[in-house]
């Protein structure tokens, strides 16, 4: 394929990188990445993946933009309040890069729809805030063999880990089951420093670009956490667990189920 001058100019800073080059940029153009959640983490991921020229970007979120989102969800603007988050995000991604294909899913993620939603994507970004959905994403991606990036933020802290099913430890290797719901400080009660979302989301976006282009070493078998108050980063090596209920030697979780109190149940 003959690359246009504008393509070469737009992506010149990638093409200049020895490890990326024209080949790497073409891989990005051909890639399909799904962002689950158009919130604090999904916002920077969406912006950077669009800017990087990831050819097909899917984004899922059921919610509408609210005033309290704007402190950290930088893909949404004041004028977007009341609009579906996925539409707001799509509009910004296309404004950055009109040549992309952006698929939106204004829906909840359920055991019933997750297989269908993630099918065909090369990589999935977990930008959701609740644990049952994080476990659902892990289980579905492990079963489908789709790599994904886990991300979490709270107050001044963030954590992330990249999972390549069959090759590296999964989220359940680290956290066996969702915590009891009464032990979880809800995001809204605990608060979060806005820029933390950008710190973590851009790490996730970087992992996506590394995976697609094959550059460097992924954050696999590693849980990276940071605390922004001390601005300390810590990597903890994680071993794949033979007893893991989903990616272990004898998996006990072989089908996807919704968490309790999921809206998915209410809809049926």
């Amino acid at each position, binding site marked *: 394929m003959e690359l246009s001058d504008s393509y070469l100019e737009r992506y010149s800073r990638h093409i200049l990188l020895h490890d990326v080059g024209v080949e790497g940029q073409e891989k990005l153009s051909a890639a399909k990445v799904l962002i689950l959640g158009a919130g604090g983490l999904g916002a920077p991921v969406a912006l950077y993946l669009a800017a990087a020229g990831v050819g097909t970007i899917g984004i899922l979120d059921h919610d509408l933009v609210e005033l309290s989102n704007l402190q950290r969800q930088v893909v949404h603007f004041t004028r977007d309040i009341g609009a579906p988050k996925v539409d707001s995000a799509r509009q910004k991604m296309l404004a950055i890069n009109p040549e992309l294909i952006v698929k939106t899913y204004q829906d909840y993620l359920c055991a019933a729809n997750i297989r269908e939603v993630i099918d065909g994507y090369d990589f999935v970004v977990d930008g959701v805030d609740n644990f049952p959905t994080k476990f659902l994403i892990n289980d579905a991606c492990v079963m489908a063999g789709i790599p994904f990036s886990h991300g979490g933020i709270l107050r001044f802290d963030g954590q992330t880990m990249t999972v390549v099913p069959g090759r590296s430890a999964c989220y359940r290797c680290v956290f066996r089951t969702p915590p009891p719901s009464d032990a979880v400080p809800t995001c809204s009660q605990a608060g979060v420093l806005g820029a933390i979302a950008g710190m973590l989301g851009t790490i996730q976006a970087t992992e996506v670009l590394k995976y697609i282009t094959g550059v460097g070493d992924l954050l696999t078998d590693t849980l990276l956490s940071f605390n922004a108050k001390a601005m300390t980063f810590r990597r903890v090596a994680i*071993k794949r667990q033979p007893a893991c209920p989903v990616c272990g030697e004898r998996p006990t979780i072989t089908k996807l189920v919704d968490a309790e109190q999921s809206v998915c149940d209410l809809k049926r």
Partner: protein
Amino acid sequence: MNIRVNGETQVLAEGSVTVARLLDIQQVESPDMVSVQRNGDFVERDNFGSTLLAENDEIEFLYFMGGGACGCLGVRC
């Protein structure tokens, strides 16, 4: 007894300390929100109370962290 917790050396005055007791000593607010690794292996939650620490153990507390978007499960948060 000297151990390392999240990379930092801790001197424990008590002789026999379980993982559960260490969570208490370290004033971990919600033990339900922590996954514990001891010398690279995970300690099952059910064994927190029976797993005794040994000299020079490397302990990692790995915290559950959510964050991101609420609009995927529909649980109001």
